[in-house]
């Protein structure tokens, strides 16, 4: 069930009314039922996978928790009897057993994801390398498998690291794994943060309801008015790369950036807004990424929960692992302190970014996309001292104008890397980007050929309007929550703003027959 379907709107309305009618105790159960109904729309085939992943992670959690509880009990029971070494020995033993449960559960869950998502990719590559011709079998990707798998892995790891206690009630854990707003495209939540607000009882508060509803409206506005309209333009540019080269590629980079931003953040706003209406606070996933002045900052503002997830569950574990420690000490001894300390971190970053890339999709363009991002971050990290000197030498570089320049620069760098998503073919992407520098069809941007790409003037007006609204809201958000601002205003103004949003969604939205609105970019992947 897609967020922008009539059935989702009806589903949300019904669930919302029931949620505040039923006794508080059963609220989380209703959310679970709602999530399962929401998920069942994706077909029974997908259902099995989410159940299995939840079950595996649930048992692992319980087993690990049992080890730790047994250990604590043993130690506290005969506090004086055991010497320090014996205590350390018991703890190590418990840790080792817990580790095997963790390893087994991760192997299964990630194994399932790997098999379902990457079999054909691996077979194709094996075929091309050794010339064999196995038949690459493509599985249907169950909805949201990449997201709930990561969320479950995070849960198991947190229990192992004793960051949170394991959830004894399987249904409550199932709700954590399958909570419908974040199922489709995240955000990837942490059990420690989410379980509290998700499983607690919520009284109906008008302010919270209004805020949640406004945020859902905001998500629909971005998704329907801007994103689904631009998809038409982006698609026509992508489907015929030979015809649309040179200046068109710049156009594609620009419009795909806006399209992906409004599509993804729109979807996340609907998710977070919907959760907020039920009183559940979900982690933020974007913080106005296009205002970032460098790549590192961009990745602290774009898809925040994914970045955090890879940092906590891939970057640190790898860099703290024994193997990496050895490399780190060896590199520091051979290359000296300054360079030596960088190499392990760069090595780990490359691993992390390659993983991030491949997670996005089973194709080389995603891997290259990840590595390019990594390269840009490492280069800007290396240039740090040079930048510092540059800033000290030239005072103008600390002015707002220079900041704006940096923002534009980051926008375009990220845009050109992101266009790998569109062509889904690495050599083709590089050829297209190269064609920009040898382009001679710059007139295309002004001589009205823009209108032959599937969008009329009226469409461009709607997109421009949408962008102006998005930019101004983002500027306001830099200072504080826009909804608080609105709440302070008189009710008449607040209602008219809500009316305006509703009217622009219904009238200007690119939905229904004639607009082949596609799914969220990240849906079902």
């Amino acid at each position: 069930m897609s967020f922008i379907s009539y059935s989702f709107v009806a589903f949300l309305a019904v669930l919302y009314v029931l949620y505040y009618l039923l006794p508080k105790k059963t609220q989380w159960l209703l959310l679970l039922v709602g999530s399962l109904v929401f998920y069942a729309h994706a077909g029974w085939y997908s259902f099995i996978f989410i159940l299995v992943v939840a079950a595996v992670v649930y048992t692992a959690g319980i087993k690990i928790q049992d080890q730790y509880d047994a250990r604590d009990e043993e130690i506290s029971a005969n506090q004086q009897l055991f010497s320090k070494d014996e205590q350390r020995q018991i703890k190590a033993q418990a840790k080792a057993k817990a580790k095997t449960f963790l390893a087994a559960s991760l192997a299964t869950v990630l194994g399932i994801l790997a098999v379902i998502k990457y079999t054909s990719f691996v077979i194709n590559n094996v075929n091309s390398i050794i010339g064999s011709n196995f038949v690459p079998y493509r599985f249907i990707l169950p909805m949201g498998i990449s997201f709930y798998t990561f969320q479950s892995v995070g849960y198991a790891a947190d229990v192992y690291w004793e960051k949170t206690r394991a959830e004894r009630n399987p249904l409550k854990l199932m709700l954590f794994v399958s909570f419908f707003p974040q199922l489709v495209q995240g955000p990837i939540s942490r059990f420690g943060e989410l379980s509290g607000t998700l499983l607690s009882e919520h009284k109906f508060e008008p302010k919270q309801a209004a805020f949640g509803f406004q945020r859902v409206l905001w998500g629909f506005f971005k998704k329907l008015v801007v994103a689904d309209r631009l998809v038409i333009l982006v698609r026509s540019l992508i489907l015929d790369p030979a015809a649309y080269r040179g200046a068109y590629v710049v156009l594609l980079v620009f419009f795909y950036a806006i399209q992906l931003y409004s599509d993804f953040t729109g979807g996340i706003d609907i998710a977070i807004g919907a959760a907020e209406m039920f009183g559940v606070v979900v982690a933020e996933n974007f913080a106005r990424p296009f205002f970032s002045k460098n790549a590192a900052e961009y990745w602290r503002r774009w898809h925040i929960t994914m970045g955090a997830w890879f940092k906590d569950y891939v970057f640190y574990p790898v860099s703290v692992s024994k193997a990496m420690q050895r490399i780190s000490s060896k590199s520091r001894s051979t290359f000296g302190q300054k360079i030596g300390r960088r190499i392990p971190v760069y090595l780990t970053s490359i691993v992390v970014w390659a993983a991030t890339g491949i997670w996005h999709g089973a194709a080389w363009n995603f891997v290259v996309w990840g590595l390019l991002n990594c390269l840009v971050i490492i280069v800007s990290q290396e240039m740090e001292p040079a930048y510092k000197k540059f800033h000290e030498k030239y005072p103008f570089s600390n002015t707002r104008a220079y900041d704006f320049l940096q923002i534009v620069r980051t926008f375009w760098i990220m845009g050109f890397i992101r266009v790998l998503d569109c062509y889904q073919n690495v050599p083709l992407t590089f050829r297209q980007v190269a064609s920009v520098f040898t382009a001679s069809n710059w007139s295309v941007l002004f001589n009205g050929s823009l209108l032959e790409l599937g969008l009329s003037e009226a469409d461009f007006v709607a997109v421009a309007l949408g962008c102006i609204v998005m930019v101004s809201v983002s500027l306001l958000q830099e200072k504080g929550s826009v909804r608080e601002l609105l709440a302070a205003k008189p009710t008449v103004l607040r209602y008219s703003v809500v009316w305006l949003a509703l009217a622009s969604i219904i009238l200007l939205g690119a939905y229904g027959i004639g607009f082949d609105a596609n799914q969220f970019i990240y849906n079902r992947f």
Partner: protein
Amino acid sequence: MEKLVLMLAQMHPDVDFYNCASLIDDGIIDSFDIISLVADLNEEFEVSISAGDIVPENFNSAQALWELVSRLQNE
């Protein structure tokens, strides 16, 4: 504790580690420093800091770091 502060000072001489309590939050220590710090601490105090321990609470101040190390020492 002094050895610990010495190590930190080696990386960032200009920071007063004794009473600064927001090393991570203010971005004074970045992921580089954390990784090499973990390697040095493991070596120096024969502890094995696990990924689970790398959370802002433990790294935000020298004091918190010292508590982490001592706790791990008698693990």
